[in-house]
C-alpha cells in the first residue's frame, strides 16, 4: 500500500455569491479529506455545488469561509498570483471541452504548462523530450505534430491529459472528462485515467456520468452544497480489456434493440 498522506483537506468550506436578498450559498460547509493515490469521483445534480467545489479544489476560486489545505499548505486566502503559482506547480487539469490551443500542435500544447513554470526551468530540448515522453505515455507518440482539428475527440482529450501530466503534478483534476466524447473514446479515457492511477497518481473527477464514477475508488456525492455521501465504491467497474470489450459489445447489442 502507498503512503497515505492527506493531499486535500477542506475544513467547513463555504462559498456564498451575491449579497443580501440575492445571496446564494453554493457550498454550505464541506469537510473532506483526500489522500495521495486515491481515485475519487465527485458527483451531484446540477446546482449541487460540485462545480463550485471543483473550482476551489482547483485553486481557481477562493472559499468565502473555511479552509482549503492542499498538500499541507493553506491556500484559502492566497491571491490570484499565488494561486496561479500553486496551479502551475501542483495541479493538472483536464476539461470537458479539452481546451487545446487550436493553432498549436499536440507537442506545443503539451509543452504549454512548462512555459509558465517558475522553478525547475529546463531547456527547450529537455522540454521537447519530456513532452514526447508524456505523449507516449498517453499513446500518442505518432501524432505529436498534429493540430487539434486533425485529431479525434478522444485523441484531443489524451493530449489534454498529457498536458496535465507534464509538470508531474500532485493531483489531477478532471471536470467531466468524457462529457464530449462518444462511448468508445470515453472508455479509452477512463482506461487511461485508470492506468495513471495505477502508476500512483491522485485523481479527482467531477462527473454526473455514473459509468465514469463506477470506475473510481471512492464516490463523494454532493447535494445542496453539502456532502451527501462519501463512500468507497463497492462495485467498481471491470478493468480488463477483454471484459471491457465484452461489456461494450453487450451495451451495443442492447442499444440496438
Amino acid at each position: 500500500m502507498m503512503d497515505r498522506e492527506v493531499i486535500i483537506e477542506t475544513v467547513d468550506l463555504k462559498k456564498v455569491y451575491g449579497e443580501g436578498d440575492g445571496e446564494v450559498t453554493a457550498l454550505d460547509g464541506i469537510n473532506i479529506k483526500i489522500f495521495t493515490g486515491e481515485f475519487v469521483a465527485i458527483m451531484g445534480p446540477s446546482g449541487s455545488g460540485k462545480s463550485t467545489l471543483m473550482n476551489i479544489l482547483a485553486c481557481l476560486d477562493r472559499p468565502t469561509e473555511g479552509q482549503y489545505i492542499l498538500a499541507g499548505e493553506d491556500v484559502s486566502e492566497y491571491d490570484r498570483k499565488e494561486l496561479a503559482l500553486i496551479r502551475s506547480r501542483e495541479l493538472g487539469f483536464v476539461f470537458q471541452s479539452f481546451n487545446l490551443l487550436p493553432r498549436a500542435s499536440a507537442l506545443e500544447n503539451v509543452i504549454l504548462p512548462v512555459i509558465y513554470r517558475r522553478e525547475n526551468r529546463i531547456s527547450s530540448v529537455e522540454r521537447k523530450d519530456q513532452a514526447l515522453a508524456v505523449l507516449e505515455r498517453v499513446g500518442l507518440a505518432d501524432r505529436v505534430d498534429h493540430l487539434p482539428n486533425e485529431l479525434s475527440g478522444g485523441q484531443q482529450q489524451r493530449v489534454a491529459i498529457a498536458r496535465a501530466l507534464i509538470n508531474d503534478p500532485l493531483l489531477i483534476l478532471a471536470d467531466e472528462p468524457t462529457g464530449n466524447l462518444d462511448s468508445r473514446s470515453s472508455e479509452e479515457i477512463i482506461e487511461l485515467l485508470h492506468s495513471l492511477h495505477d502508476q500512483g497518481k491522485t485523481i479527482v473527477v467531477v462527473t454526473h456520468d455514473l459509468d465514469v464514477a463506477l470506475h473510481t475508488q471512492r464516490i463523494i456525492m454532493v447535494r445542496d452544497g453539502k456532502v451527501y455521501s462519501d463512500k468507497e465504491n463497492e462495485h467498481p467497474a471491470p478493468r480488463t480489456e477483454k471484459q471491457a470489450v465484452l461489456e461494450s459489445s453487450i451495451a451495443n447489442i442492447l442499444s440496438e434493440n
Partner: protein
Amino acid sequence: MNFGEVIKSAWSSLVSNKLRSLLTMLGVIIGVAAVIMMISISAGTEATIAESINGLGSNLAFISAANVRGGPGSGPENSSGGLVYTDVTAIRDQISGVAGVSVEQQASENVKYNDIALTGVTVVGTTPDYTTVRDVTVASGRWLTEDEQTRAEKVVILGSKVATELFGTAEPVGQTILVGDTTQLAVIGVLAPKGLSGGTNFDELVYTPISVVFKKFTPSFFARVVGDRVRTIFVSVDPKASMTDVITQITLLLENRHKVTADTLDFTITTQQDIISTRESTTASFRTLLAWVAGVSLIVGGIGIMNIMLVSVTERTREIGLRQAIGATPGDIQVQFLAEALMLSLFGGLIGVLSGVGGSQLFGQLSSMRTVIVPYSIILSFSSSALIGIFFGYIPARRAAQLDPIVALRHE
C-alpha cells in the same frame, strides 16, 4: 515566461492572421512614414531657400524705398518714397566699413543682334560696384567703369545665357547689339554663369550703366516724375566692420539727406540675416505644424492597435482562461498581450521608416522639390511607434489579465 518565449508567442500570434496584423499596422506605418516625409520635404525646401539667400551674399544690406503716408506737401521735397541716385555716392563716400554700394534700375527691352531677336529681356542699369556687391564674375572682357557711368556711355555686359543665344560660340566682346529698337550698345564683357540666386537669374540679364537706363530706357513722362529715384540700394559691408554699426551710420546719413526723422523714415534697411531669420522661423513653425499633423495619424494608428487587441482578447477569452488554469499569473497574461501590441507597433514603425525614407527619396526625384532626410525624424517617429504600442496596448493587456479564469473558461 522568459523573454524569448514572450517574443515567440507574440510572433506566432501575429502571423496566425497576417492580413489582420498588416491592416492593424497600417495606421502606424502611415503615421511614421508621414512624419518622416513631411519633415524631409520641409527640410528640403528650407535648404533650397537657405542656399538661395546665401547666394545673395552675406554682409549684404538692402536699402529699399518705403512710401511715406503723409502725402504730397506734408514733408520734404522727395516725400513720395525717397531714395535717389546721389544717395549712392553719398553712402560710398561718407560711410566707413562699406566695401561696395550698387544700385539697380531695371527695364524690359527687346535685344537684337543681326537676325536674332530676344524679346522682354531685363536690362539692369547699375554701377561699377555691382560685381562686388552681387558676387558675380566677368568671364571675358571687363565690367563698367565709373567714367562710363558718369558719361552714360553706351556699353553693355551680357549674362552668359544671353551671350550664347545671340552669338553662339563667337566672341561677343567688341560687337554691337541693338537694345530697345533704337539704342546701340557695345558689348564690353560677358559674365560667368551664375544661375538662379536670390530670386534673380543672372545669366538671363544684360547690364549697362544706370545713367544709360535713366536716359534711354525710362519713359520720358515717367522720368519727369521719378527723376533719378531708385528703388533699391545694395550695400556690401566690409566683413571686418560691424553690420549694425554701418546700418546705424547709413540710417543717420539718409535721415539727414532726406530730412526725415526716425518716425517718418522713407526707407527701410534689411540685411540678409534678417531675411534668413524670418524665413527660418516661418519654416520652423511650419515644420512643427506638419509634424503634429502627422503625429495625429500616429495616434489614430495606435487606436487601431488598441481596437484590434481588444477584439483579440475577447476572441481568445477561453485561451486566456486555459493559460491561467495551467499556471499563468495575471502578470504573465499582461506581458503576453503587451508584447503583441508592441510587436505590431514596432513592426509598423520599421516598415513606416523604410517607406518614409524611400518615399522621400522618390518624391525628391519625381517632383521638382528637394527632400532632405532628417535623422531625428526617423528616431522621433520610430520611438513614437514604440510608445504607441505600450500606451495603446496597455488597456487590452490589463483587461486580459483581469479575466477570471472560471468565467473565461466558460466563455464561448
